[in-house]
Structure formats: structure tokens, C-alpha cells
């Protein structure tokens, strides 16, 4: 059964953390809430958990002031800083949700024992069941926190930047591990993160948020390759950004000394400002114009950085602006490009975003 959130709003003082947010979470999916700090993603997660209450709108779970118990609520929450019970062993931490149940609903001791060990095996920490949290590494602690949340068989698993406090290497491993775990258990999960790589790698769908609003909801592929707004485009992945103005149905980009075609859906009034986005790996860099009639512009190679899986080239165009492109090692070798060469840069793909109708007082359209 999908979870529906309708028109949620929440303010802290004068700061609007959430502004009219609506979302549907599908059963069994792993959803990522992605955005910079202050975007409202953590607030949204906490409202889902019942840790905070929205000022307006309806959420699916409604916590009274000390009323309902676990059996009714069934939300699992994993905190960024684990929030493990420091004075209890790993086993007691994971068993906690089961041992606090009222007598009539509480499982027998043997059953609790079995369930806890099963979960610990699932997170590969069975051998450490009798250790205390401060004897564990950060990655291990997070896995215990996960097992603890799963012990109560939640309807929804909520994770608040679960890997944020960890070493980069450990983070990568746990990401893959979480993906596998989710595939195995299949519980609906919502993950909050500011790391776009993490969201794109782990989630079934991504919700990109900014300043309390949802910018776009879609699969990782959709949000990356078909961003719905400037914000989404610049937030996800590397990007080159240029300013231009519409003239004669095209966008004149002074910095490049070229004109690019307008997108079909944009407003086409002359004189309207526009911004053109190109991803570094969508640029073809070659000695000569490939002659296919695509708009291209000239630039000089300023720096070549070949250390890594792909080659990163920094260029300076005619107007003195900087841009960067990503090539494979083969492409670099084929043309034998080097610093100082004058080249033709052809964007294979680009996005153009225009200002909405003349600047109003709400000043939308900027980050």
C-alpha cells in the first residue's frame, strides 16, 4: 500500500522548512530524498517518522502525545549518529524494540533470541553480539542501528544520512550493502542524503529537493539525464554553465561566440535571459569541426589531467571563459591533444533554461 503525503508545510520560526510538499511512496521501493542542507529533506523524513509534526497537510502516520505503541506505528528509524544505547550490548540494542512491548504482545524469550541473532547474521555482526557500541567501528554501529530498526518489522524504514558520519571508503561499501539488503528484505525505505552519487547509486527513485520544495521526482536515470529544472541539473553531476540571451529564435551565448538552438518548450520572446548547461562528458573535443553542422565553438586547452579513469580537460574559450570536458583516454590519444592546442568543442547534448516571464517579485529561478 503506497504512502501518501499531501501538501505538507512546516516552519521553524520564519524559516520555511517545507512548503506545500506532496509525495507518494510506493510499496517496497527505496526512495532517496536528495538535496543540499536546508532543503527540507530531513524535516520531511522526521515528519514521516512522527518525530516532528507538520503545520499543515496530512501525513500517513499520526503520533499523539505519548499514545500509540509500536505494534500500531511500525516505523524503523536509523539516525545519522546511530543513537545506539551506549550502556547496552549489541544484542540488547537490537532486542530493545521487542522487549518493550506490552506483555500480551511480547514474544517469548527464545523467540526474541532467535530473531535478534537472525538479524545480526543478516547484517553480518553475529559474532559481536555481546560487545558494547563504543567497542565497534562506525560502520559496524550503523549496521547495528539498522538491525535494531528492522527488529520491530517496520512498515517503513527511514534512514537519516546513515553514512554521513563514515569514512569515504566505508561509505561506498555500505551503500552497496544496503542495496543488497533492500533487495533481500524488500521493506519500503526512504533515505535522506546530500550525496548525489549515493542517491543515484542506491535508490529506485530520487526526490530532488531544494528550499523546502520538491524539484523533481524520478528514477536516477530520469533526474540525471532529463532534469526538470536548473537546480536539478546543476546539483546532479558536473556541469558547464553559460549565460545567453534569446535572439531570433536562438540563444546567443556571448562567451562561446555561438548560438544554440532553443528548446521547444521554452518561452521564445526575444531578449529573455537564458542559461545553457552542458555536461563535461557530453562535449566532443577535436582538432577540427566534424562538419556535421552542429554548433561548435573554439577553445584552447589549458590543462590536461589524465590521472584517473577518464581524462579531464580544462579549456579556455575565445571570450576567456573557462569550461571543462571529460574524455576517455582513447579519445585523447587519437587526436594527440595537448596543452596549448586550439580545438573545436561540439556539445552533443545540452539543456537550455530560460527565465520565466519578466522578473516578478517572487524572484524564482535561481538557486
Amino acid at each position, binding site marked *: 500500500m503506497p504512502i501518501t503525503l499531501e501538501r505538507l508545510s512546516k516552519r521553524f520560526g520564519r524559516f520555511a522548512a517545507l512548503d506545500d510538499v506532496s509525495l507518494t511512496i510506493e510499496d517496497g521501493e527505496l526512495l532517496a530524498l536528495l538535496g543540499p542542507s536546508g532543503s527540507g529533506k530531513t524535516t520531511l523524513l522526521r515528519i514521516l517518522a512522527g518525530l516532528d509534526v507538520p503545520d499543515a497537510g496530512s501525513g500517513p502516520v499520526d503520533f499523539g502525545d505519548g499514545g500509540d505503541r509500536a505494534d500500531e506505528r511500525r516505523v524503523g528509524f536509523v539516525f545519522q549518529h546511530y543513537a545506539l544505547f551506549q550502556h547496552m550490548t549489541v544484542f540488547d540494542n537490537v532486542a530493545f524494540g521487542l522487549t518493550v512491548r506490552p506483555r500480551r504482545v511480547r514474544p517469548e524469550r527464545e523467540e526474541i533470541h532467535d530473531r535478534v541473532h537472525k538479524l545480526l547474521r543478516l547484517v553480518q555482526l553475529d559474532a559481536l553480539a555481546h560487545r558494547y557500541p*563504543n567497542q565497534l567501528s562506525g560502520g559496524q554501529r550503523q549496521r547495528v542501528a539498522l538491525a535494531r530498526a528492522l527488529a520491530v518489522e517496520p512498515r517503513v524504514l527511514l534512514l537519516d544520512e546513515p553514512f554521513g558520519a563514515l569514512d569515504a571508503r566505508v561509505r561506498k561499501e555500505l551503500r552497496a550493502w544496503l542495496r543488497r539488503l533492500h533487495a533481500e528484505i524488500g521493506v519500503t525505505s526512504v533515505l535522506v542524503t546530500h550525496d548525489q552519487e549515493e542517491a543515484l547509486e542506491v535508490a529506485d527513485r530520487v526526490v530532488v529537493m531544494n528550499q523546502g520544495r520538491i524539484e523533481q521526482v524520478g528514477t536516477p536515470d530520469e533526474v540525471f539525464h532529463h532534469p526538470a529544472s536548473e537546480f536539478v541539473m546543476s546539483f546532479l553531476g558536473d556541469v558547464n554553465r553559460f549565460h545567453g540571451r534569446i535572439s531570433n529564435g536562438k540563444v546567443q551565448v556571448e562567451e562561446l561566440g555561438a548560438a544554440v538552438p532553443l528548446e521547444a518548450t521554452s518561452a521564445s520572446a526575444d531578449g529573455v535571459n537564458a542559461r545553457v548547461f552542458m555536461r563535461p562528458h557530453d562535449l566532443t573535443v577535436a582538432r577540427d569541426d566534424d562538419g556535421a553542422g552542429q554548433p561548435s565553438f573554439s577553445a584552447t586547452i589549458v590543462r590536461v589531467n589524465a590521472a584517473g579513469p577518464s581524462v579531464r580537460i580544462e579549456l579556455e574559450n575565445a571570450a576567456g571563459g573557462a569550461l571543462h570536458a571529460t574524455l576517455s583516454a582513447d579519445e585523447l590519444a587519437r587526436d594527440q591533444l595537448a596543452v596549448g592546442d586550439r580545438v573545436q568543442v561540439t556539445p552533443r547534448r545540452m539543456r537550455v533554461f530560460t527565465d520565466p516571464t519578466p522578473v516578478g517579485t517572487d524572484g524564482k529561478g535561481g538557486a
Partner: protein
Amino acid sequence: MSGDHTSHPGRHRLGEPRWVRWSLIGFTVVSLALLLLLPLVSIFSEALARGFGAFAESFSDPAARSAMRLTLLVAAIAVPANVAFGICAAWAIARFDFRGKTLLTALIDLPLAVSPVVSGLVYVLLFGLQGWLGPFLARHDIQIIFAVPGIVLATIFVTFPYVARELIPVMEEQGREQEEAARLLGAGGWQILWRVTLPRVKWALLHGVVLCNARAMGEFGAVSVVSGHIRGKTNTLPLHVEILYNEYNTVAAFAVASSLAILALVTLVLKTWVERRAERAQEEAARLEDQAGREEVVYAHHA
């Protein structure tokens, strides 16, 4: 700095010259010995001035016995009551946001700034014969001032901040996350308090109890004002000391005083022990965290 400082083996390059250091040490030892240890020693010396027999006799006196009982009774009521209050106040203040928190905290600090005599006086003005509720109490034949209830109330007034003031900063520092996690796992209020909160603050709680108890048993000024000094009925140990002294029964006065001094020493020992345990627990936790963190990096590089 010039080179001669570094060539001196006994001179720490970044320290005071030796003579300053040793003068300060000498000064400290002498002044503390004079100011603190000498009075302590003199209590026992005066108490035993006429031999151990006279010393022991002072405690078999029925008035002394009843003073002891009353002191213990007052502490047995005041300390648990203040512990309960302290936990409630700390829970409300450290776990929730609300208007008037500053005022509440200031009110909790108030008894510590007020003179003990004023603390007793306010109760006399409230419950005394000429006080606000005086006529009401007289009509119903309830005695508060010059009776045990008054002593208990005055003691509670001067001692209730101790536990709360220990718990509040500790709980504020610890943050709400573990309790929130417990709630989300389905724990009820009492379960959260008992299984998550209290175990985390146990040293602070114990520290507060030790201080609260010391003050409850030793309070003089406030109790003196409300008690009426009725021998055998409304005298606590400190008041009994005063009575004996005023009767020029010096040895007995010091004997009883020495029992209170022993109580003070026990308090100091307990307090220091609790502080050391708390410190050690923190260091241990920090050490293990460090170790675990290093293990993790190693593990990550080997994976």
C-alpha cells in the same frame, strides 16, 4: 628567550622559576593546612579532650539520640523527594523546548543564592502563628512551624537544587536522540526513563544525591529558624550542637560535631569516588571509540 634557560636541567623552559613554584606550593600547603585541616583536627581533639568515655557518653544522651533520629528522618524524606523533583525538572527542561525555561531554571537556582535564615524565615511567615496560613492551621490543630513538618519543608527548600542542577546540564549535553530512538522502537515513557535515560546519568545522579544528602543532614540556619529548638523533639544534630555549646557543655558539643564531621568526610570520599568513576567511564569510552575508529580505517583499506 636567552639560552641559559634551556641549559638548566631543573628549569622547565615554559614554567615559573623554581623558587616561585616552591613558594607557591609552600604557601598553598600551609594556608590550606591552617584554614582547612586545622579546624577539622581541632574538632576531634576537643571532642576527645576528656577521654573516650566522655566522648561516648555524649551519644547515649536521649536528646542526642532523638536529634540523630530526626536528622536521619529529615534526610530520608528530603533526599528522595528532591531526587524525584530533580528527575522531573531535568526531563522537562532538557528534553523539551518551551517558553519560560530560563525563568524555571532561575527559580531552581534561587535557594542557592538566598541566605539560609531567609529560607527559614519565609516558612515562618507562611505557616507561623502570625503567618499567612497561621490562623487556618491553628484552627485545624496542625503544627508546621516548631514541629517536624516545618523542618522537613525548610530542608527541602535549601536542598532541592542539588540534584536538578547535576542532571540538567548532563542531560542537555547528551541530547535526545537515544530517547527518540527508544520511543520509535515502541518504548513507553517509564520504559524510556528507566532503561535509557537513568543509566546514562547515573554518576551525575549519584553526585547530586551525595551533595543533597550532605546539605540535608547538615543544614543549620534554615532549620534553626523554623524549629523552635525544642529539645528532644525538634532538634536536629546541628541544632543539638548549638544547644550543647550554649550550655558550655563543650566536650559533648564537639563530640556530636565530630559525628557530623565524619559524615562530611564520608561525603567527600563518596563525592571524589563518584567523580573519579565518572571520569574513568568517559575516558574509557573515548579510548574505545578511538580504537574502533582506527580498526575501521584498517579494515577499509584491506577490504
